[in-house]
């Protein structure tokens, strides 16, 4: 079936099977490799993309359900988004496999809650697993990004 998305600002048309997951379509047809397979059951968050601004596990999201939606992946943030900068400045990653999903989740968190507490950050990141265990620095990166968003330097460690 024929589906239309707006992906990272560009309108695209793709041919998908009705039972295909969005993850497959993003990687195979649109070559968006920041969206990654890990658990296949929607618990780890490595396949996160934003659908109309909301983080979604694309490994369990049927591709046709996103017809007409706006999809954002890390490729769409460019390379200088405040959350990306914060992750880089805080060294908040090791292998980098989970990082794009983390960044998208944090972007949504900070848009909804510009000054999250540590507990709120941990809850928001509950669906993004990092097996390298970079959580200490990831939480620091979220605070740094929050400061950059709101211009409040006191939030920077």
């Amino acid at each position: 079936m024929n589906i239309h998305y707006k992906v990272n600002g560009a309108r695209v048309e793709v041919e998908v099977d009705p039972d295909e997951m969005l993850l497959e379509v993003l990687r195979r047809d649109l070559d968006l490799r920041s969206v990654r397979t890990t658990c296949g059951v929607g618990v780890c968050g490595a396949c996160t993309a934003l659908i109309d601004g909301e983080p979604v596990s694309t490994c369990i999201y049927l591709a046709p359900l996103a017809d007409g939606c706006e999809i954002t992946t890390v490729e769409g943030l460019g390379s200088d988004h405040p959350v990306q900068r914060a992750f880089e400045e805080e060294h908040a990653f090791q292998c980098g496999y989970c990082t794009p999903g983390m960044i998208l989740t944090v972007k949504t968190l900070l848009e909804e809650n510009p000054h999250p507490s540590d507990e709120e950050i941990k809850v928001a990141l509950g669906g993004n697993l990092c097996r390298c265990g970079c959580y200490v620095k990831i939480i620091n990166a979220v605070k740094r990004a929050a400061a950059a968003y709101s211009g409040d330097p006191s939030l920077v460690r």
Partner: protein
Amino acid sequence: MSDPRVTGAIRYAQDVEFEGMLHARVLRSPYPHARVLHVDTSAVPDHIVALTPEDVRGLGSYGCQIKDQSVLAVDRVRFAGDPVVAVAAPTRLEAEEALSLIDVEYETLPSVYDAVEAASEGAPLVHEHHPISDNDAAYFGMRPQQGTNICHRFRIWHGNIQEGFDKAEVIVEEMYRTAGAQHAHMEPHASVALWRGDRLEIWTGTQTPFNLRMDLAGIFGIPEDRIRIICPPMGGAFGAKTFVRYEAIVACLARKAGCPVKIVLDRNEEWLTLNRHPAILRIRLGARADGILVAKQVECWVDTGAYADCGPGVAQKMGYAAVGPYRIPHVWVDSHCIYTNLPPNGAFRGYGAMQAVWASERTMDLLAQQLNVDPLELRLKNVLLDGDRFCTGEVMHDVHFIECLTAVADKIGWADHQAGKGLCVLMKGMQTPSRASIVVVANDDGTYDVHCATAEMGQGAWRSMRLMAAELLNVEPNRVHFPIPDTDIVPYDTRTTSSRSTYMMGRALVEAVRDLKKRGEIGYGECVNKGGLDPDTGQGIASTHWHQGAAAVKVQVDEETGKFQIGKLHTSIYAGRVVNRPGAELQNEGSMIMGIGTALFEGITFADGQVTNANLSDYNIPAAGDIPDITHDLLEREGAEIHGLGETALPPVPAAIGNALYSLGIHVTELPMSAEAVLNAIDHKQTQHAAHDGTASNPHKR
């Protein structure tokens, strides 16, 4: 210049693609132990390539330490998940569907799932013979016990154990168990193979390109230089991406299909590929009344599953690590690596040290209680100092156990009161013997290329190498390039394991830069560390230098539910000299967090030989919300050697937590320490309290 990990631009092995490439899937045995009577692939459509046991029967067997594996299970399957047939199709979906068209007839055989039972006489044999591998990963004297399930036995004889226990005024003894664990690296195993004429080219996430090349050469009967291994960065590995995993299967499929073939595992297949060794350890420890240790007896039953992989090495390391960083005049160790009909177990961050430290350091606290002394004091009194001999006969140098212990004790306020607090100290060996070599090339534009086989799996090795090279060459780090390792280009390296790369490859780099300055355009350097242990006596050099650390923790227990909270966890790790500070911190923090998973909830469960939690929903790994207040410090000394930091902070975490529970009278001997296990231990404590049984040498013995 944004990092490709934040822009998503990094490319892992799973992203490698070639024109006309096929996708592979594997048909696995549903039975833990069975004869394969008949394989029928006739229903598979012609455009899909099926690789059957008959296709691989004539190929060489392989195995990094014991040669016990064939490319597919031929005639017999040894665990539920053993690959029997592989297919390659234009899409993964077609390959998956083709698996359902294959018919395999089995005749089930008796199986064994417990290491102690498997080591007993009359147990069903998983393998009849245990041929020692010619791979250089079989670097020590292997002692397979033919006609049994024991594929390696490692012993230490130091002093006279009987005499030692005769001198002991207090003796404690306990038995411990640790569960199997899954690495759960985020990027699944991924490999692509293609043949260019008579040359095999493999793109794969591997920590061991040269060991892989050696085994593939043996499988195909071709010289090593006709095989090229290219190693993109990995999305995590933690020991899982070592030796031959699926590279041989895709190489065979690619040869049969005449085009490139790729495999990317489904998550559940990871539990059928490689896990951490479940282990059973029995420790008997004797001391004089003044707390001086006099004798220690260690027995290990290391469950390596259906294939040995590097289990013999793990059993050896577990054996000496369980002696601990102590001066003990009489030591006796007997460690067995044992086959069972469970999925294979192999290298896992810590390499046997976690299991060893759990048993050894828990026992130290049992002894402290019997002696009625402070567990910290007991350790300080007995830890190895510079110039002391370890039980292997080697003389210790550059040891810092006292500093590590006092640092962690201070951080949790040990001196104030000790209920709910626990600590732990450890030593962990580094791969000995081994060799690292490296080439540095000066380019015309003022940049440099560093060529070495050190693999990047997130541990930051490539950044460390670039920082060290930049310092030695006196240039900005961005002028140093590190092309992805390619065995056609890079010189030999033993492997990227055991936290050895920054130290060993770093020393080779110093030589290479010195050579480059002499020769102008290209410089070569190598570093060799020599040693090894006699497997029958345990004498020799276990490690040319030691990874050292300590952990301390505060816990609060809900005695109604068995749930407990970690109030604070601190580790102090000896770094010698830090090269890449954020990388070093990340390694410590990541190790501690993995240690929390091991301590609290990670454990593979089985029913009749089948894994019952092979997914990340039933098998939990730590999430952000599981992280308590964790802190650490990196102990440095002016002019000291670099010490690897990839694993050291993991092994002490479970034991420190177990000791904190023990300080409250809660004696848990098995990992993970689930709420249920803690509640059982609380019930046991209350029962014992009621019985007033204080006469045995160990009142908490189960």
